[in-house]
Structure formats: C-alpha cells, structure tokens
C-alpha cells in the first residue's frame, strides 16, 4: 500500500551521485518509450513490409535476404486485360458500399428499438445476429447457394450483398444499439416537449447524435465485406468477380507475388474508407458499444 514511487525505491548504484541518477531517470524513460514504440512499429509494419517487398519482387529465393530481381512483371499479370483486376476492384468496392447501405438501413431501426424501446427477449435477439459469425460458414454456404439458385438470386450482386450483410449485421446492430443508447434521452424529451413528432425527433435530434457510432459500424461492415471470399464464390461467381477471389487462389497456392499485389490493392479502399469516416469515430460513442 506504499505510495512511494518505484523509482525512488531502486537501490542507488555505487559511484552514482543523486544527480547522476536523476539524469539516468531522465534518459531512461524516453529511451524505454522509444524502444517500446519502435518494437510496436516493427511488429505492425514488419509483416506489411514483407508483403510490400513481394509486390515488387520478380525472383526471390533463399539464401537471398532480399529479392534478387526486382520488377513490376507481376503487376502486368494482375492488371492484364483478362486479369479483371480493375473490374474486380470496382465490383468489390461497390458491393462493400452496398453492404454498408443495406446494413445501416436494417440496423438503424433495429438498434433504436433495442436501445430505446422495451423488447421481449432482448438478449436472445442480440444473440441471433451473432449466429452468422458463430457457426463456421463452410458447410452452410452450400445450403445458401441452393436456396439462392431456387429463387434466382445466384450470380447476382444483390445476392452477394445479402450474404455479406447477414455476416456483418452483428457489427452493425450491436454498435448501432450502443450509438443510440449513448444519445442523451433528455434531449429527445426536450424536442418532444417543444412539439416535434416522434419521426421528426428521430430525424433531427437522435440520428445526427448517433451518426458517429453508425459510421464506426459502417467501417467494420465495409472491411468484413472486403474480406469475404467463400460467400462470394458460392453465391456470386462466375458473374460476380471480386478481388478476394483472386487473392484467395493466389495466396493458398503460394503465389506470393500476385497475393501481395492483390492484398495491396485491397488495402487502398479499406484505408480510404477509414480516412473518410475517421472523424466520426468519437470516443463517447465507442464507449457505449454492446451495452
């Protein structure tokens, strides 16, 4: 229960004066800080750097620590007219945006209801949204494909958007619920007392205040959609061509150059979208997620 700081309890090495110890302390802290941040940067960027090297490597094998031949030959292969990279990229981004729109459209009313209104079996409802993430999807996709073939949704972008949405809805609904819960109810009451109807209150008071949280969920849903391969294959291919499909075959087959290039291309919309909504990822909203 001592409140004496740790540094004062350290034994003073012989020959080191009091001021010398202060000097050491003054240097130690920034040094440790710098070291810790440096290690973190290595841990985060090291693997990414490795990927970047593979994007420009034409020949790289042991014992060379770096590629023995650099070049953009594989970029040519990825972007070849038949390689469909640009088309896949546009499709992937388009689908991801569609998923965001659909998820929010479903999650906003659901989130509001779960946050504000009395609902029976609230926990059960929240759990239902978790199920698509909780059951490993591999055996289910075949059944989903069959259902989609029966209703003619297979091979359509709508079908792919639906499947991605189902997968990402847990993020959308849980975070939307939090966002609405974070809105101060007294503000809504004030609007109602001033004569605004419920829809107007929602549109002009609640929704704008909850928007930051909703944007946060949009980011996660967007990223989930860009990551999805199996669903897109079963429901979308061959009409719907997305980058993860290309990435998956290349990566699993050990074609590192193509896998790294495709990964790099996929990073661009992810980071772009994040920068777009960055200013909405506000602290007070993230605080209430999942309550």
């Amino acid at each position, binding site marked *: 229960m001592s*409140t004496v*700081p740790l540094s004062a309890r350290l034994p003073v090495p012989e020959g080191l004066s009091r001021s010398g110890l202060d000097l050491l302390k003054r240097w130690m802290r920034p040094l440790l800080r710098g070291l810790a*941040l440096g290690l*973190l*940067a*290595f841990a*985060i960027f*090291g*693997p990414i*750097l*490795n990927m970047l090297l*593979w994007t420009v490597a034409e020949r790289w094998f*042991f014992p060379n620590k770096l590629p023995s031949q650099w070049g953009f030959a594989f970029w040519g292969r990825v972007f070849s007219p038949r390689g469909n990279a640009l088309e896949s990229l546009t499709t992937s981004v388009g689908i991801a945006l569609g998923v965001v729109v659909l998820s929010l459209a*479903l*999650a906003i*009313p*659901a989130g*509001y*209801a779960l946050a504000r*209104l009395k*609902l029976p079996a609230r926990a059960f*409802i929240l*759990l*239902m949204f*978790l*199920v698509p*993430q*909780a*059951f*490993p999807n*591999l*055996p*289910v996709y075949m*059944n*989903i494909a*069959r*259902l989609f073939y029966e209703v003619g949704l297979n091979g359509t972008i709508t079908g792919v958007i639906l499947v991605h949405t*189902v997968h990402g*809805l847990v993020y959308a609904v849980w975070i939307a619920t939090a966002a609405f819960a974070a809105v101060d109810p007294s503000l809504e009451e004030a609007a109602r007392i001033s004569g605004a109807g419920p829809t107007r209150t929602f549109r002009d008071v609640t929704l704008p205040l909850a928007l930051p949280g909703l944007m*946060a969920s949009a980011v996660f849903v967007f*990223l989930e959609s*860009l*990551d999805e391969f199996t669903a897109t294959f079963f429901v979308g291919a061959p009409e719907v061509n997305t980058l993860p499909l290309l*990435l998956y075959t290349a*990566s699993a087959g050990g074609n*590192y150059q193509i*896998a790294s290039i495709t990964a790099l291309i996929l*990073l661009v919309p*992810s*980071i772009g979208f*994040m920068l777009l909504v960055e200013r909405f*990822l*506000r*602290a007070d*909203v*993230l*605080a209430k*997620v*999942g*309550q």
Partner: protein
Amino acid sequence: MPSRALGLSLVAPALLTVAIFFIYPLGYSFVSAFSTSSGWSLANLQKAVELYRDDILFTVVIVGLSTALIGLCSIAIGGYLTLGENPRAVAVLKFLYRWPLFIPFIVAGQLMRTFLAKNGMLNNTLVSAGLLTPAETISLLDWRGIVITFVWKQTPFVALLVAGAMASLDRSTIESARNLGASRLRILWEIVVPQVRASLTVGLTLSFVTMMSVLSVPLMINAQSPTTITANMAFRINAYGDYGVANALGVISILLTGGVAWLYLRQASRDKGRAFS
C-alpha cells in the same frame, strides 16, 4: 402503437434477413449433423468428439489465449493513450495501432507465413541485430503463429473500443488519484479498467466468436496436429465429403461460442440492472 409492437416491427427487417438468409440454410446443417443415412442419430456428434476431442480443446485454448492477450494489449494501448504524458508518443501510438485492422485474415495469414518462419523476416532481423545465431532461430509456424496472427489482427478492433471508452471517462477520478501519488499503472488497473469493463468484454466476445470461425489462418500457418475445429471441418468435407461430421463439428463450435456470448449478455444485463437498483 404500443411500444412492444413498435419495437418488434423495427427489429423485424433485420431479424428476418438473418432468419431467411442464414438461419434457414443453417437448419439444413443442423439436420445433417443430427442424422445419418438411417435417420436421426447422434453418431456424427459421437464421431466428431471421438476423432477430434484434442482438436476441440486445442481450438478453445488458443482462441482463449488469444482473447486474453488481446485484452491485455488493448488495455495497455488504451491505457497509454489515456494516461500517457508525452503527446508525441501518444500521437505515434494512435497512428500505429490501427493498421492491422485493415488487413483481411487471409492476407494476415499470408504475411505471417513468411514473417514467422525459421528463416523468415523476424528471425533474419534478430540475427542481423546480433540477438540470435542462425542455429538458434526457431520457427513459429505452429500454435504460437496462430496466436500471434490472431492477436496482431484483432487487437486494433478491441483497442479502438477500449480507448474510446477510456477517453470518455470522467477525468476527475484519474486526476485525484494522480494527485495522491498513485502510479499510472495502478490508476489504470484499479480505476480505469473497471469502468471500461463493459466495452472490453463486448470487444473480446466479438473477437472470440470471430476467431473461432476463421479457417484461413490455421490452414496457412499451423502445420502441426492438433489443429483447429474449422480446419478439421474443411478436411472432413474436402477429403471425405462427410457433411454429417463436419456439421456436427459446427454444432460444437456454435455451442462454445454461443455459450460465451450468452454469459457475456447475462453479465451485461446484470450490470445494467445493478445500476438501477
């Protein structure tokens, strides 16, 4: 319109979407898990447990371990962002920690495959820095690689939630504790973390559930046995065409994740109830 009916009708579109486009096809999987060619039976489940008991345990242990590590790292990152006193360091940390969030799991597996190998980038760097000799390098391409990849990829998500929660705390409790001379580590552990427990647990629950279902990472990194439930499901389908046992494994998986999620939700509603009492 009575509040209950309104509430249900607002939730209905989202629920129906999940129900029709996932729960209904999932029903077929459940049926497949609990039936064989001779009708309803538990044979698939029995076979799944008999052949894969070690793997199930393995999956739970490494996902659990990853979740615990993610929790610790998120608290550390969130704590430094909230309590850190060097503005430049805080800014650098803020920039750094989010990057793995944008890397899809399959890419993360790909990255780690060459990074963590015996002669991969990690070991090469350690050798170049003189910390290891080439003979001492170890390959991390086993359960440790899976844990490292999961922690690398999921920490930013939980850290984002936790840091947000910490930043919105009332700073007066923190300030008064500082004035009393408490170390920042103690403040973090005894004052800050208890108040953000809710955000932490929801992030960890979502992470646990997601990690249990990942297939790409174990396939690309873990060569050893035992391996994860998902890898075994894939193997069962692709090598034997045995959907019964694969779906049985899926049922086991959802029981595990459902159990964890249910515990979390019960705890959360209990906390809420307590706040009003």
